[in-house]
């Protein structure tokens, strides 16, 4: 039996196909404004990678902000449930999950069986979530992928007032005018995300092992900064942005 998990996030749509416990196909596509269309595209791409067709998929669980817009889904799961399940499959020893996505960040505590025992969220303010880094990359006029590596070139803590993305954009512009090196600005931006994430996770309590997932976990600048602020080491899966989709697929595979 093939089970599918689809994670419709704010910026990307991810699909994972499982046969038993084995991943047989996956995809990640940029989401458009029409989420149900993006979901279809992502599903078709994953099926193609696995050499399967829609008829082969027995059950599909959708998660993510746009989970209700996936017409072909048989069930939905919250992002928190999907994260916990996905992490448990990958790292059974993990108890604390930090997930920073484009429009939402979460701290989740799990008991090791995939059950959620507690969680806290940052959402609906761009200053505490991943899209902050994207806006700042535009203000700095550099590619988003270059932000992390660039910030690692800096060893300076510059004071930066980053409480709001909109105000921060103007501040970045004046820092550039004041000839502050871009690596220092990038570092300050990552530091701001890291402090917010840290205080959110502290609310649920940090219990080992800790894992960092979500698209932002691919940014080495945030990773470094988070390590400094959190004061503990953490694991990062190879594809941190796929964990929600893996969890959703697991939920689909084991539902009866």
């Amino acid at each position: 039996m093939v089970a599918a998990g689809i994670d419709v996030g704010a910026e990307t749509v991810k699909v994972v196909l499982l046969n038993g416990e084995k991943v047989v196909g996956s995809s990640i596509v940029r989401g458009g404004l029409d989420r149900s269309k993006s979901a279809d595209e992502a599903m078709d791409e994953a099926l193609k990678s696995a050499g399967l067709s829609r008829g082969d998929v027995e059950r599909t669980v959708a998660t993510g902000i746009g989970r209700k817009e996936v017409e072909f889904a048989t069930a939905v799961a919250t992002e928190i449930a999907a994260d916990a399940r996905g992490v448990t499959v990958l790292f059974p020893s993990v108890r604390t999950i930090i997930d920073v996505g484009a429009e939402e960040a979460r701290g989740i505590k799990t008991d090791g069986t995939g059950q959620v025992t507690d969680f806290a969220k940052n959402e609906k303010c761009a200053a505490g979530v991943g899209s902050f880094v994207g806006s700042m990359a535009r203000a700095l006029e550099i590619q988003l992928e270059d932000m992390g590596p660039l910030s690692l070139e800096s060893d300076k803590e510059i004071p930066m007032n980053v409480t709001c993305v909109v105000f921060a954009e103007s501040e970045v512009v004046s820092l550039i005018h004041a000839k502050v090196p871009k690596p220092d600005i990038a570092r300050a931006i990552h530091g701001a995300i890291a402090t917010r994430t840290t205080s959110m996770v502290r609310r649920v309590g940090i219990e080992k092992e800790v894992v960092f997932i979500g698209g932002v976990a691919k940014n080495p600048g945030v990773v470094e900064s988070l390590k400094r602020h959190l004061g503990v080491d953490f694991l990062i899966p190879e594809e941190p942005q796929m964990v929600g989709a893996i969890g959703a697929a697991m939920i689909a595979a084991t539902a009866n």
Partner: protein
Amino acid sequence: MAEQKPEFWRWHEYTWRDEGKNWKDYEMITAGVDIGSVSSKAAVMVDGELYSYSLYRTGSSSPDSAHKAMQGCLEGTGMTIDDIKFIVGTGYGRVNVPFAHKTVTEIACHARGANSMNAGVRTILDMGGQDCKAILCDERGKVQQFLMNDKCAAGTGRGMEVVSDLLSVPIGDIGPLSLGVNREPPPVSSTCVVFAKTEAVGLLREGFDVAEVLAAYCAAMAHRVVTLIQRVGVQKEFAITGGISKNSGVVKRIEKELGVEAVEIAPDAQLAGAIGAANFAKDLLAKQMARAGG
């Protein structure tokens, strides 16, 4: 976005003086200086009556802006700073008015000033370029309750500028355009300006026209400000000050949602802080004189 944009709210630098008064005939000469993030204002009072005031754009240094505003009040009067017995400074953040005898918070000055210009005012909503304040005061202009929001661009002039950029509509046209629509789309649901921008683009794709999207944004902004002001409660009279008070699209929707109409503040709502500061200066001077006398 990189270039420094002029304030769009179409106000001019100017000075005013009461030609009918000779300051030498008065005893208590006091002044208030209010250095905002955008505009710098000063007001001189003689025995508690307005004598002169000035309004300029704030430059990069707040001491220089303070001097400029003060000089604007003095020019042509023969008065010098040393003739002013007490000066109170106020403004945004850690202001620096080097010649002030005392600093009073902008909230207290704003309430005092608005109330002294229109004695009935109890609730003041100040919507500035970078912040939004709601103040409740008593009949003497003393603050009873206040709330400030300067963390988030939503509900501020800056948030409106983002939308004006996005839709390429000059800020001054937003109000009238947004009021001219035949159908109102649902208000933009995201508070966050960043996410609201995405929503606005979505509305355009769905076939709403620019004016309708503006209406949706003005309604969202009005709603946001209303929820803030409701935390302090609204008592009559209700006055709106600050840059967005000139945006009819937001003001009309606030009035509608609150069910209260805003009153005018003459001569210029922008002077509330400076005039309030000059009033504080008068009280402080009176105290000082009483102490010296007794």
